[in-house]
């Protein structure tokens, strides 16, 4: 039985920036191994786990994608023992000053992001946030030693430890999107005890934050009939309160828009209602900003769906999720899979008229 809290805390403490996901991938593989029939790594570094269904061959396939890569920083040059850096994935430079970080040089080096005093910066920064190119990382070692241990291209991850908050909420970096990985893991756990006729492909994708490489390439290998992306979305909180945000701990956000097949939206929505799982309507007028963006247009096109877990302070080292929402998402997925009929594609997905 996988305990969500310790599993997730461990997951977000492992390095795994976009393109360099190996450490976290190994931990996920270890957790999935007893629950799947096959496990392998794709060409782009995504983890593919197959849990075979019990239906007669040829079986339909559902792919569930949760990206495992983290945002972070990368060293660009060394200046007098300090490190200049750029971003990997979208990082707001305003959250950087004073942050603890880990530099993955020839060995793991704890450091701090420094905002230099204004007289060491171009004049315009006296009352403005300092752009990333002028921030520095200090690893507390003399320049000669730094030159031995660090070089351009080395990765830097956030050093913030997870924080358990009241109300069964967890704070930390990289809950985007390891919270969804935990939800998928929870789903696999539940599937151990149910019959499902479809094949289930659990995929921890690589590079979503940078190129969506996993989303574009895994379905080519797997050829699923349905692809579901599970990602995080914006929870209501300070500075985030419009229709794009959802209350924390009050349910799963169900996607609607051009990036989602209307019949899949309806199927998930109806099922959640039936099971008393609270949900929110997540309107995405154009693109979903998730792996579903790539998965939908692979080869001849794939019917896609997006489920999202509300999360506060996205892309900061103190993101916050409610563990309840993670469990709900995993449960909804498992129930959906368990109820998938062999003829779901023919009967439901090819209907383009009755899905309102």
């Amino acid at each position, binding site marked *: 039985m996988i305990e969500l809290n310790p599993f997730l805390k461990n997951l977000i403490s492992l390095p795994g920036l976009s393109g360099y996901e190996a450490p976290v991938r190994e931990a996920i593989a270890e957790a999935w191994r007893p629950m799947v029939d096959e496990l392998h790594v794709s060409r782009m570094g995504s983890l593919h786990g197959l849990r075979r269904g019990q239906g007669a061959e040829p079986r339909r396939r559902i792919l569930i994608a949760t990206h495992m890569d983290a945002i972070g920083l990368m060293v660009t040059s060394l200046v007098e023992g300090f490190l200049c850096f750029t971003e990997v994935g979208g990082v707001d430079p305003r959250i950087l000053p004073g942050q603890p970080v880990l530099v993955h040089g020839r060995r793991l080096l704890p450091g701090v992001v420094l905002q230099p005093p204004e007289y060491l910066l171009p004049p315009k920064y006296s009352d403005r946030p300092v752009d990333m190119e002028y921030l520095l990382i200090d690893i507390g070692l003399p320049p000669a030693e730094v030159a031995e241990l660090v070089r351009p291209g080395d990765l830097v991850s956030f050093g913030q430890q997870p924080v358990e908050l009241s109300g069964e909420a967890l704070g930390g970096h990289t809950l985007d999107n390891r919270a969804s990985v935990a939800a998928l893991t929870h789903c696999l756990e539940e599937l151990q005890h149910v019959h499902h006729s479809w094949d289930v492909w659990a995929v921890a994708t690589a590079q979503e934050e940078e190129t969506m490489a996993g989303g574009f390439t895994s379905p080519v290998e797997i050829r699923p009939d349905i692809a579901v992306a599970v990602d995080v979305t914006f929870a209501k909180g300070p500075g985030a309160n*419009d*229709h*794009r945000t959802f209350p924390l701990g009050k349910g799963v956000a169900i996607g*609607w*828009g*051009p*990036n989602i*097949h*209307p019949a899949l939206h309806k199927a998930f929505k109806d099922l959640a209602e039936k099971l008393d799982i609270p949900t929110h*309507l997540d*309107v995405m*007028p*154009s*693109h979903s900003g998730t792996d579903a963006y790539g998965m*939908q*247009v*692979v*080869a*001849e*096109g*794939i*019917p896609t769906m997006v489920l999202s877990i509300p999360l506060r302070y996205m892309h900061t080292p103190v993101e916050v999720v409610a563990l309840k929402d993670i469990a709900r998402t995993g449960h909804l997925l498992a129930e959906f899979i368990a109820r998938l009929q062999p003829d779901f594609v023919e009967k439901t*997905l*090819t209907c*383009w*008229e009755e899905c309102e």
Partner: protein
Amino acid sequence: MTEKSSAPSQVSSLDTAPVDLLEKLSNAVGVSGDESEVRNIVLEQVKPCAEQVKIDALGSVLVTRQAKVENPLRVMLAAHMDEVGFMLVNKEEGGLFGFERVGGLDVRQVVGKPVWVGKKHIPGVIGARPIHFTNAEERSHIIPLDTLRIDLGPGGGDLAKVGDRATFATNFEQVGPTLRGKALDDRLGVATLIELVKNPPPNIELLAAFTVQEEIGARGARVAAHAFNPDMAIAIDATPANDLPAWDETENARYNTRLGAGPAIYISDAGTLSDPRLVRWLVENAEEAGIPYQIRQPGSGGTDAGAIHRQRAGVPSISLSVPVRGAHTAILQARLEDWKNLLALLYTALQRLDRKWLELERR
């Protein structure tokens, strides 16, 4: 210099441009991601005559018309069913809905317009703050989209829901030589393609794609091209005619196309560098048949060809459009003559198309 093809010197032509069909299509509500009203009209038209009709995973309609010759060239033609519009994103009291744009829409075109919500065309309006409440400073700024609402009237909250799509409420009409309506981009292309599906040139395998989601990145065209795997492709679209006078009476050097100057052949836009062999094919056919045409100015904008030509191992592609004034606004205008000439050019040129045009490498 490519050899002239050995097609028959007598080519048949299409009789007339189907304006009634265009009217039905133009009045249909089909915003990117929810093209069903348009799709139903297309299906109704093509099912009786096509050998193969399929709706793919994104909702595009893929139709095949077999050739009447051996080893025909497989030609994909694409016209997009979707239009730019709105999605209701937030419900408030008294029939008011917050909304967002879908596709490229200048926010200055949105204000003070009636709209239709959903397939039932529920009427609504997008108003604006009364001028009496404004001052000169406020009026010097664009009205922010998030202050606007779609108003369905006091009881309207029950008539629509968050997630529904909406378009401008423009009724199609013909005014002299001019066709006027919403979504002529690209219902003109859809009507053209329907006409070709009904009257396919016998010498090619016609792979007709009525695509979805062109306005948000040619998403439908991408997968349709992968499915069809054609030898070449033509996107049939509408393109802006900005042939208006400049404010300072200088020459307008950025008109893109001119109304009345004929169908527009693309050499380049922001998404595609047309295959020069196909440019020559269209230009030579236009000149030989005496059909007026113009070259669409290179510059911004794109069509389904942008996605199609990069599919699989590459697809030689070009675009051909009807010039329209007011693209991506509530009221578009096209000249019936330009549309007729596009139909004529396409029909003639396709009948005189054979493998010789693509035999030598792209040059």
